[in-house]
C-alpha cells in the first residue's frame, strides 16, 4: 500500500502502452480524444461492478451474482417508475441501490450460514435472484419509448464535448458515478476501520476475529456494498442502452472477475488495488474496442482476443511466480 504504483501495475501499464502503440501504427485513427471518451463510456458500467467485486475479493470472497443483482435492482426500480410515472434519476438510483444492498445482504447471510465457498453460494443466488425477478416480478422487455425520460438524458449526457471529424464526441456523465464509486471505495478501504477489517478478514479470518473484528458484520457490509454498486451499475446500464430487458447482463460475470484478477487482486483475498482493477478492465475493453481499428475481420476476433488474454495472464502470473519462488514461497 505504500508504493503508489507497484510492479504489477507497471506490468499492466506496459502491456497497455505496447498494445496502444501497435494499434496506432495499424490505424492512426486510434490516436484521438474520442478513443478515450469511448472507452470511458463503454467500460463505465463494468468499472463500477469491478470495483464492487474488488472489495469482495479483498475480503477473501467472490461474487458471481452481481450481474443478476444489477438486473434485479434496475429492472425492478424502472418497472416501478414506468408503472407509477415517477421520472426521477435519484429515485431510480436510490431504489435500485437499495434492492442491490438487500440482495447483497442475502448473499452475505447465506455465506455466513452455510459456511461454503462464496463462489458456490453466489452461483446459486445468481440463478435464484434472476429466477425470482423474472418469475415473480415481470419478464417483459421495455423499449426506449416507455422508459422514464430522465434515464435517456442521463445515458446520453456528457460533461463536455469536443468536435471531431464528422460530429462531436463527449465525455460521458457516467464517469461521475465511476469516480464516486472509486473514491468512496478508496476511502472505505483505506481510511475506515471497516475497510481495514475487510482487508483483515481477507488475510486471515480467524486472525481478524482475534484482533476484534466481527467477520460476519464485515461480510454483511462487503456484500451489501458490492450489491449497492451493482444496483447503481444496473441503472447506468439501462440508461446507456436505453432499454430494459429481463435477461441481459447475466452471464458476463466471469469476464469481470478476470479483469479484476488481471489487475493484481489475489484470488485468495487480502490484497488488491482499485487502480489495478481499473487497469484490468481497461485492458479488456481496449482489446475489444480496437479490433475494427486494426482491421481484424470478425471471425478472427476471438482468436486474437484470446491470444492476447492468454499472453497477458501468463506474463503477469509468471512474474509473480518468479518473485515468490525466489522467496521460497510456493504458490502453485
Amino acid at each position, binding site marked *: 500500500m505504500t508504493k503508489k504504483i507497484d510492479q504489477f501495475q507497471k506490468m499492466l501499464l506496459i502491456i497497455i502502452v505496447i498494445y496502444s502503440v501497435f494499434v496506432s501504427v495499424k490505424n492512426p485513427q486510434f490516436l484521438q480524444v474520442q478513443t478515450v471518451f469511448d472507452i470511458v463510456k463503454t467500460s463505465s458500467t463494468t468499472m463500477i461492478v469491478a470495483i464492487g467485486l474488488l472489495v469482495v475479493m479483498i475480503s477473501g470472497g467472490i461474487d458471481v451474482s452481481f450481474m443478476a443483482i444489477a438486473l434485479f435492482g434496475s429492472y425492478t426500480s424502472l418497472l416501478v417508475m414506468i408503472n407509477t410515472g415517477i421520472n426521477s434519476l435519484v429515485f431510480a438510483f436510490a431504489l435500485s441501490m437499495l434492492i442491490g444492498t438487500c440482495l447483497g445482504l442475502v448473499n452475505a447471510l447465506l455465506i455466513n450460514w452455510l459456511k461454503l465457498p462464496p463462489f458456490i453460494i453466489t452461483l446459486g443466488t445468481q440463478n435464484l435472484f434472476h429466477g425470482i425477478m423474472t418469475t415473480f416480478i415481470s419478464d417483459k422487455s421495455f*423499449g426506449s*419509448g416507455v422508459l422514464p425520460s430522465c434515464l435517456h438524458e442521463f445515458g446520453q449526457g456528457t460533461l463536455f464535448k469536443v468536435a471531431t471529424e464528422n*460530429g462531436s464526441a463527449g465525455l460521458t456523465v457516467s464517469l461521475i458515478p465511476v469516480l464516486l464509486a472509486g473514491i468512496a471505495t478508496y476511502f472505505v478501504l483505506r481510511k475506515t476501520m471497516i475497510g481495514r477489517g475487510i482487508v483483515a478478514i481477507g488475510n486471515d479470518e480467524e486472525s481478524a476475529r482475534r484482533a476484534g473484528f466481527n467477520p460476519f458484520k464485515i461480510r454483511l457490509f462487503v456484500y451489501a456494498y458490492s450489491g449497492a454498486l451493482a444496483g447503481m451499475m444496473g441503472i447506468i446500464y439501462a440508461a446507456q442502452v*436505453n432499454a430494459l430487458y429481463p435477461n441481459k447482463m447475466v452471464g458476463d460475470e466471469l469476464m469481470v472477475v478476470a479483469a479484476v484478477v488481471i489487475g493484481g487482486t489475489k484470488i485468495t483475498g487480502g490484497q488488491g488495488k482499485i487502480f489495478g482493477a481499473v487497469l484490468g478492465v481497461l485492458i479488456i475493453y481496449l482489446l475489444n474496442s480496437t479490433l475494427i481499428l486494426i482491421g481484424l475481420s470478425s471471425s478472427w*476476433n476471438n482468436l486474437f482476443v484470446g491470444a492476447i488474454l492468454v499472453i497477458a495472464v501468463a506474463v503477469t502470473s509468471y512474474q509473480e511466480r518468479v518473485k515468490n519462488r525466489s522467496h521460497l514461497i510456493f504458490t502453485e
Partner: protein
Amino acid sequence: GTKTADAGDTTTTTEKAETTEAADTAESTENVSADPADYKVVMIVKQSDSWFDDMATGIDQLKKDTGLNVSVQVPETGDAASQISIMEDLIAQDVDAICVVPNDPNALVPTIQKARDAGIVVVTHEAPGTADSVDLDIEAFVNESFGQLFAENLAKAMDGKGKYAGFVGGLTMETHMAWYEAAVKYLEENYPDMENVATEPYEDGNSVEGAHDKALEVLKAYPDIAGFFDCSAQGGGICEALQENDLAGTVKVVSLALPSMSSTYLKDGSMSHGLCWRPADAGYAACYAAYLIASGQGVETGTDLKATGYDSVELEGNIGYGNAPLEFTADNIDDYNF
C-alpha cells in the same frame, strides 16, 4: 405424414367420440379426426425475449380461435443444445406436432428426423436451409428478398452513395447471414457508389450494448461512414451511439426492428427504416400448418393459414412462403403494438 387420432389427447374422450363421428361422416373412410382439440402441438422458440413473447401471444390466439391444444416451450438460453433436449423430451411425450424456430437448423436435423420417425409432424420457421428434413418450413418471405429490402431501404436513405457497415447478431446466425449476404450483393450490383467497409459483417452479439459499442468503433475507424444496417433487432444501440456523437439522422440506420423497442428511434429520425415480420403471425401460421398436416388436411399452395400475411401460402418444395414483411417508418410505426 398423417397420424391416427388415438395417439393424441386422452382426456376428452367424450368429445373425441363426437368428433370421430363427425370425421367419419366427412371423410367417411379414414379414422382421422379434424378436431383441433385432439391435437397436441408444441412450439419451441429460441429464447425468452420480446420477439418470442409476441410469438407466444400469436399462439395463444390460435388456441383461442381454434381450440387447438398448442403450447410454447422456451429454452433457458438461445442455444441449440437446449432446443434439442426439449425436443427429445417432447418426442418421448408423444406429441402430434412440433414447431420449432431453430437456433442452429443443421444441429437440429437429426432430432427432427427422430421426431418424424416417431410419427411426429415437424414444422420449422426461419430455417429454409433444412426444409428437406421437415414436413414444412414456414417463411414470412424469401430471405434473399428480405435482404434486398434492407439494401433497398439503406440505399434510399443514403441516396445511393457512401460507406456503410452491416451488423449481424453473430456469424453463427444463419438467417442474419443470409440477409446480410443478399443485401451486400444487391448493393454491389445496383449501387456502385456504395461501399461496404468490411468483408464480413460485424457481430453485435444480439445485444443493444454490443451494437452500441461496435458502432462507436466503426465511427472511429471510418469517420466518413454514412450508413448502418443491422440484421439483428439491435439497431437501437447504433442509434444511441449516433446520438452521442451528434450524428443521428446524418448517418442512416436500417435495422430489423420490433416496434416496441424502436419506435422512438424511428420517430426522432435516428433510424430511417425498420424491417420486420410479425412473430405472432408467424407462430400462428406455423402451428396451424402443423395441425393441418398432422390431421391429414395438408398444406399446399394457396392454403389459408389464417394469419395476416399467410392467407395464401406459396409452396416451394417444403417451404411455405407467406408474404409478411413489415416495413416501419416514423409514419406507420404507431399502427403496430408488439
